[in-house]
């Protein structure tokens, strides 16, 4: 599906204060989740109670913004009540859309809350016309959040072949390219982002300092070691630094942040409806700075201009202090 209307800026909120910050910084939509394992950012002290979500929706609507609720983990067989309850609560709070990946959650929303829009989470890893068509036909999904595996040219071709809107990540952390199917951390920690909402449970993460620097450990396994002053990354296995033979390196993925701020015009031309900023686990300072920078860049793109300075504005907020345009420019091909 191609679009000619203004692109929507979709921004993260891990707390009510981050939601307010995102709205005030110019977010068109804010996405958030409940304080349990129904969403893929299930960290201590993060997320919303039902009452906080209702208040957040009221605040966002009063300022002309929308709220999208992520219920995007996969329901546990034999214990689907938390997911059912989350879907019902999101609808009753007046959420503008629910972001889901599990077909049980999608089916519950489609049958019980047909008036609430359904967005297909990146956790569903739907990147072909056939898979997206299935979700659209079966559950009336209106938008798909694209996995970060496609080039801009591939997104343009996909948009010509589907009837639903597309949402593309433009900034924040990157996953290895098997979103929704990654069980890497479960081998070390026994839990996964897909089922429990965390890939590195904080209670299993430690940073231990010694004379040579800092060792990052997950469930007792050393996954990286940083020299004093060396930029660090998230403590996930996929971004660990390992030694093979005599050579130490990032086996799966470098600790860099996605920043496709310089490609907004290209996304527009490719028919992308919405641009998504990652980072519900990040603070209010991050939300304010990133949303403000992207608001300016998207507005510039709508005027036909590009905003290349966005790279330098946001460099200090990036993981590992480095940025990439990821698969959007597949320079390795």
């Amino acid at each position, binding site marked *: 599906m191609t679009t000619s209307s203004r692109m929507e800026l979709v921004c993260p909120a*891990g*707390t*009510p*204060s*981050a939601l307010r910050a995102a709205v005030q910084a110019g977010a068109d939509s804010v996405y958030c989740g409940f304080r349990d394992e129904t969403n893929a950012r299930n*960290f*201590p*002290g*993060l997320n919303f109670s039902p009452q906080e979500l209702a208040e957040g929706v009221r605040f966002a609507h009063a300022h002309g913004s929308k709220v999208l609720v992520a219920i995007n983990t996969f329901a546990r067989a034999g214990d689907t009540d938390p997911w059912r309850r989350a879907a019902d609560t999101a609808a009753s709070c007046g959420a503008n859309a629910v972001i889901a990946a599990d077909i049980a959650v999608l089916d519950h929303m489609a049958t019980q809350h047909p008036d609430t829009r359904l967005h297909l989470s990146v956790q569903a890893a739907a990147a072909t016309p056939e898979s997206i068509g299935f979700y659209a036909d079966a559950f009336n999904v209106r938008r798909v959040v694209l996995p970060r595996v496609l080039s801009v040219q591939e997104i343009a071709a996909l948009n010509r072949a589907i009837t639903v809107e597309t949402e593309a990540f433009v900034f924040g952390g990157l996953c290895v390219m098997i979103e929704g199917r990654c069980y890497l951390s479960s081998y070390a920690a026994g839990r996964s982002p897909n089922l429990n909402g965390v890939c590195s*449970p*904080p*209670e299993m*993460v*430690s*940073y*231990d*300092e010694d004379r040579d620097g*800092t060792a990052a450990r997950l469930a007792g396994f050393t996954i990286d070691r*940083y020299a*004093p*002053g*060396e*930029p*660090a*990354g998230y*403590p996930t296995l996929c971004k660990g630094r390992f030694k093979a033979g005599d050579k130490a390196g990032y086996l799966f993925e470098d600790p860099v942040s996605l920043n496709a701020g310089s490609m907004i015009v290209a996304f527009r031309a490719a028919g992308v409806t919405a641009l998504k900023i990652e980072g519900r*686990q*990040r*603070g*209010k*300072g*991050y939300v304010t*700075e990133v949303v403000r920078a992207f608001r300016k860049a998207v507005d510039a793109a709508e005027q036909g201009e590009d905003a290349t300075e966005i790279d330098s*504005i*946001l460099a*200090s*907020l*990036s*993981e*590992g*202090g480095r940025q990439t345009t990821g698969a959007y420019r597949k320079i390795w091909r």
Partner: protein
Amino acid sequence: MVLDPNKDASLPEPIRRFLPAFSGRPLGPLLTQAMRSLAQRRPEAFERLGEFCKAHFLIDPTDLPFIFHVVPDGRAALVHTTGKNGALPSDVVIRGPILLLLGILDGSLDGDALFFHRAISVSGRTEAVVALRNAIEDAELRPSDLLGLGGNVARFADSGILGGLSLARQIVTGTHRRERTDS
């Protein structure tokens, strides 16, 4: 505020030398009282901590001669200050220049970004740090909250103290000179 992580935000040496280790001692009872009084007025500010309200946090401003031991247990909160050699057993240790730590507290700086760039360091029970960070983020604490002020006095105190902190950060990192040159 985007802070250049490569700039040292530590207090200048003359200020650090001026402060003796015992200068932090009066802060313990004052901050204990301020936190308990905050818990009375805004109990929800502590709810996000969950079980970690009883965790022991050691906050070490690397450019001050004293450290803070904090147990953020709402109305039973405790803040104790000691010299650098008087560290008590703790669940978490957070280290960094005082102006950066205060920036995280007032929400003007992003703790993750400071950690990625090693401007602050964290060790111990990571889940307690994550809970504390998220609780502080959502509480949107203002200086007047800790001082128990209200009305116009609160507004005056907030703008004065936060403006002063922002200016101090710009001065120690040299940002104010660059901005003046650029304009």
